[in-house]
């Protein structure tokens, strides 16, 4: 299966582990992501909070480039924020704003291609079968909390997600590794996103509640499919522990890291070795059949 690929800025920087593990999984299951040539930043929250036009036009240029380079090929987007922006732009391009968008970006855009997340791409029956077949080191005994966050799920009229209060796509993929997914209340709660920069005091409670609920429901780790959520959940865990006098120890893995490790990838190879919150030991102990701490 081939996809046109919009990596987004995060994959080139803080989400480097995502990019590494994703490449590993794709090789293992025979899926190909072909990067859109000359793509630009989708603008994220800064774009759409500045103006409706900017929020639509930045991602629309990427849609137009993909249409030009690989007409009709579905576009896979590995970041929740980029995914949301691309889907908004797609709807705008398909509707009454088409002409305006083409004018703003200076090229034609039709909105003819489908936008999919990593979860949607891997949930495709053929890909899911290939994942199942590629698991070499099952992660039985591991209990994780699948964290979807906001923008893969909401608003459902844009994401098309059926059960936006209790999505299942990530849980199902995680279970292919042998790991168990806990039932928890914060799988679609907001992590604070970019507000951890401009409003850190107001945003910390959001992370605290996510960790607290994950731990209370028996999770040993949190799984995400978004570089922004990863940065917040992983990098800021120490600061939250400090602020709240807590001792949360919840390694955070990209969905693709978990899949890659279960497929036999080395920790360095798939990114697990370079997290802020130590993430190697939990999986190493598990794989070595030691007791999980």
């Amino acid at each position, binding site marked *: 299966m081939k996809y046109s690929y919009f990596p987004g800025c995060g994959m080139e920087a803080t989400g480097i582990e995502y990019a590494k593990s994703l490449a590993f999984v794709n090789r293992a299951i025979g899926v190909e992501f072909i990067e859109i040539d000359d793509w630009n930043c989708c603008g994220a929250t800064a774009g*759409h909070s500045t103006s409706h036009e900017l929020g639509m036009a930045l991602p629309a240029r990427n849609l137009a480039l993909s249409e030009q380079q690989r007409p009709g090929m579905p576009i896979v987007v590995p970041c929740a924020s980029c995914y949301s922006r691309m889907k908004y732009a797609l709807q705008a391009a398909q509707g009454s704003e088409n002409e305006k968008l083409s004018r703003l970006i200076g090229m034609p855009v039709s909105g003819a291609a489908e936008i999919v997340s990593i979860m949607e791409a891997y949930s495709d029956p053929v890909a899911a079968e290939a994942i199942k077949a590629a698991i070499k080191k099952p992660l039985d005994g591991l209990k994780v909390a699948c964290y979807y966050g906001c923008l893969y799920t909401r608003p459902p009229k844009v994401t098309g997600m059926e059960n936006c209060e209790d999505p299942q796509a990530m849980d199902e993929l995680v279970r292919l590794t042998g790991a168990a997914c806990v039932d928890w209340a914060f799988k679609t709660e907001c992590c*604070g*996103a970019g507000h951890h920069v401009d*409003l850190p005091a107001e945003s910390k409670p959001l992370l605290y509640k996510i960790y607290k609920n994950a731990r209370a429901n028996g999770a040993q780790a949190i799984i995400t499919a978004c570089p922004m959520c990863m940065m917040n959940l992983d990098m800021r865990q120490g600061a939250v522990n400090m602020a709240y006098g807590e001792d949360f120890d919840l390694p955070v893995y990209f969905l693709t890291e978990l899949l890659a490790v279960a497929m036999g990838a080395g920790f360095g190879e798939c990114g697990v070795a370079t997290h802020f919150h130590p993430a190697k030991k939990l999986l190493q102990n598990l794989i070595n059949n030691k007791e999980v701490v």
Partner: protein
Amino acid sequence: MAEKNLSSLSAANAVRIEALADSIGAKLHECYQCGKCTAGCPMAGSMDLMPRQVIRHLQLGLLDEALHSRAPWICATCYTCSARCPHDVPISELMEAVRQQAERAGIRPIRRSHLFTKYFLLPLKWFGKNHELTLTMFYNLASGRVLQHFSYLPAMLKGSKLKIFPARVKNREAVRRLMENCEREAERI
């Protein structure tokens, strides 16, 4: 609370508020003030007006109060309110429209949020892509939080998570023109 003559206020602001609601396809009268938006809002605890109250102010014609509220700037655009509203009021989009209008009027109740957006878009205009180092440097200097995020630097560099030199699109001219087109278009409205 000071008394307000609602009917004359409404008359003066009705057109502007209607235009604001129309721009995102919201029908303000659809909100029956149930408060479900506020109940699920993860940022409500830090807001001066609850999401329900922002919409109530607009229903009553109190545009200036809404424009000066911190709430639309604290909103994380998580869409929980929009997804849960029993009357399909796009409240998240409404928060955003209020923030945009405030920004255009030079009303910035939270200067740091204004700066974050400004400096996020700066490298985008230069390089066509986001560049965390440029954003952090400019933001930290402008906001007076010079050392914010400094402690993460060593681990970031070790894990190659920080690009010293920004990634750039080839056709930077196209992105710059796109952004300028959008600026002009947004001003026209």
